[in-house]
């Protein structure tokens, strides 16, 4: 399955430019071509996932082998963690694209939308697969630059303002990341992640690397919208077209933010207690403040955007706890449990937050408003949207038997096992607040008395939109199966294995 790896980047890139050319000549070309490409990528990702297991493969572009022990070529690495991310990216990508088939008709320049969508997928697949820092940066820019364009796709006043804000803060983040990569290259003379790890293992000056780590946390923290760096997210995620909001909130902040942070801090740097504490604190702050900010929103998509910050806080906090435990080195089971909870919650968040944004898009599609105060009584008019959004809301607020319950439970159990009682309490309390603001969303959108007189005229959304929502709602239920130990072993264990044995990444790639 080696030859499939570069195709994850090449196929969406080629289709993006094909859509630009052929979209002008053949009418409706993009409409069937783009979903097919995304479906093919999803199938490829699943094939890789099923065949990989705990092993990892690396692919050298151009066949450049190591010269005297130094990797000279560009590496693409596929291991348990990255293949899981590939599956999420292409799954949510396919569903959001299928949803767009009806949703995006109201916009002009449809073919540009599909081309940019393919580019964003290519960039994210590249970030996840890339084995060296510079290519990671290049693919990160590919995906975020196309996301700037997609956020501004409505070309209204608010969209352009949000996109501008996003560009300024995103550009700042990219600059910090590039500076950090430059500093790493200056000291270690290599850009390959595995090789950097080997150089660091031989000894390093701590203050210098603490500085680099702080730069990286700020840079990728901006991309992932962890709380002091979150200012762009509510605007950008609420003014983008809804399938794009689902992509941005569900996948992009994870693929270019959390994934890279976790990959670099677990597999490239050596753990330090200070950085682990910073991670945990940032995660806990995002979790708490994000939830309170979400509670006050009346705009559906802004509410969902703030709730993304809060849920990402859970993930970052779980990984931070596991880092603290791994530095202490006395409680490996709790550390493994925290990583499991983090990875599991990341997968779950992609599914239910994607679904919630698609629901918000369905509401906006039929009502032309995002204001909760102007909605009400839609549960009978839009049964599919109502029931799927109910499932997603229950799942994000952690009600059994939905998937969110189990991932939050694992994180809380890990916190108690690791003796982080305050964090465990906070996680429980925030879970209740999450339930509160999602009940508010449910009540004002679907169950209140109808405010609009024209409520009889409102029909359910078209097939492609309702189908995508139903698929994600089924996944919300199905993913709770991951709580069973045997299924959990098969699906999450490879990712946890890579992160727990933090040396395994560098040793397998360098062939030591």
């Amino acid at each position, binding site marked *: 399955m080696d030859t499939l790896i*570069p195709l994850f980047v090449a196929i969406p890139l080629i289709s993006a430019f094909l859509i630009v050319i052929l979209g002008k000549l053949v009418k409706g070309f993009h409409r069937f071509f783009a979903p097919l490409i995304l479906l093919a990528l999803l199938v490829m990702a699943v094939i890789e996932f099923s065949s990989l297991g705990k092993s990892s493969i690396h692919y050298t*572009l*151009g*066949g450049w082998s190591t010269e005297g022990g130094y990797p000279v070529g560009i590496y693409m690495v596929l291991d348990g963690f990255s293949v899981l991310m590939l599956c999420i990216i292409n799954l949510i990508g396919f569903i959001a694209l299928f949803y767009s088939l009806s949703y995006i008709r109201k916009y002009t320049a449809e073919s540009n939308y599909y081309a940019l969508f393919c580019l964003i997928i290519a960039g994210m697949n590249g970030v996840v697969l890339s084995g060296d820092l510079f290519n990671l940066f290049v693919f990160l820019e590919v995906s975020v630059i196309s996301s700037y364009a997609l956020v501004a796709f409505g070309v209204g006043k608010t969209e352009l303002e949000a996109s501008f804000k996003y560009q300024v803060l995103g550009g700042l983040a990219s600059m910090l990341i590039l500076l950090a990569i430059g500093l790493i290259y200056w000291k270690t003379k290599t850009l390959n992640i595995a090789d950097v790890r080997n150089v660091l293992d031989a000894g390093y000056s701590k203050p210098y690397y603490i500085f680099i780590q702080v730069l990286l946390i700020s840079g990728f923290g901006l991309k992932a919208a962890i709380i002091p760096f979150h200012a762009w997210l509510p605007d950008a995620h609420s003014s983008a077209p809804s399938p794009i909001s689902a992509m941005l909130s569900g996948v992009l902040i994870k693929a270019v933010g959390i994934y890279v942070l976790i990959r670099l801090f677990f597999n490239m740097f050596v753990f330090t207690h200070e950085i682990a504490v910073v991670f945990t604190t940032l995660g806990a702050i995002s979790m708490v403040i994000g939830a309170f900010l979400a509670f006050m929103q009346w705009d559906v998509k802004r509410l969902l955007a703030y709730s993304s910050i809060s849920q990402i806080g859970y993930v970052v906090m779980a990984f931070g706890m596991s880092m603290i435990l791994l530095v202490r080195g006395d409680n490996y089971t709790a550390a493994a449990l925290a990583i499991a909870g983090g990875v599991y919650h990341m997968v779950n968040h992609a599914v239910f937050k994607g679904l919630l944004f698609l629901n918000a898009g369905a509401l906006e599609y039929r009502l032309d408003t995002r204001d909760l105060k102007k909605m009400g009584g839609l549960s009978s008019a839009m049964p599919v949207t109502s029931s799927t959004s109910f499932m997603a809301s229950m799942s994000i607020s952690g009600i059994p038997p939905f998937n969110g319950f189990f991932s939050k439970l694992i994180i809380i159990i890990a916190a108690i096992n690791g003796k982080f009682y305050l964090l465990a309490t906070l996680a429980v309390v925030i879970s209740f607040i999450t339930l509160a603001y999602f009940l508010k969303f449910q009540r004002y959108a679907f169950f209140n008395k109808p405010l609009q007189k024209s409520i009889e005229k409102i029909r359910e959304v078209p097939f492609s939109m309702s189908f995508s929502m139903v698929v994600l709602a089924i996944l919300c239920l199905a993913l709770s199966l991951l709580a069973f130990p045997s299924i959990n072993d098969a699906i999450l264990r490879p990712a946890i294995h890579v992160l727990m044995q933090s040396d395994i990444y560098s040793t397998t790639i360098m062939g030591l």
Partner: protein
Amino acid sequence: MEGMSTIVKKVTQLMAGIIFMYGIYIILHGHLTPGGGFAGGAIVAGAFILLILAFGSSALNLKKEVSGTSNVESVAILIVLLLALMALLFGIKVFFFNYLPKGEPGELVSAGVIPLYNIFIGIEVAAAILTIFLALVIFKEESSK
């Protein structure tokens, strides 16, 4: 956009061809000397931009030009990707493998596929920069109306 004075027009006429040739030189010698597709492409685009600035854009149908340059850009990048994908058919079957004969080092025709990559990246970069420039011109003309 209006053109500039006769002096500027005459000097640009004399210079543009030389700049264009220099860009082509940089692209073709990409595998031998510093520079390559990106640098050469930027210079080639510079020659066109100089002409448009000196002679004004009123003689051009800007919308048509923009769709032309953006098509050229897409085709060029597709050819680059296709050249890279063709590597999956030859030799050790890896992406971006250099499958053509390498030739003598230092000769103009050598280094396998790399000159081809340089040529198409040059076309791509020139077309892309020209597209951006034309888009800015269109924006300025539409906003001044």
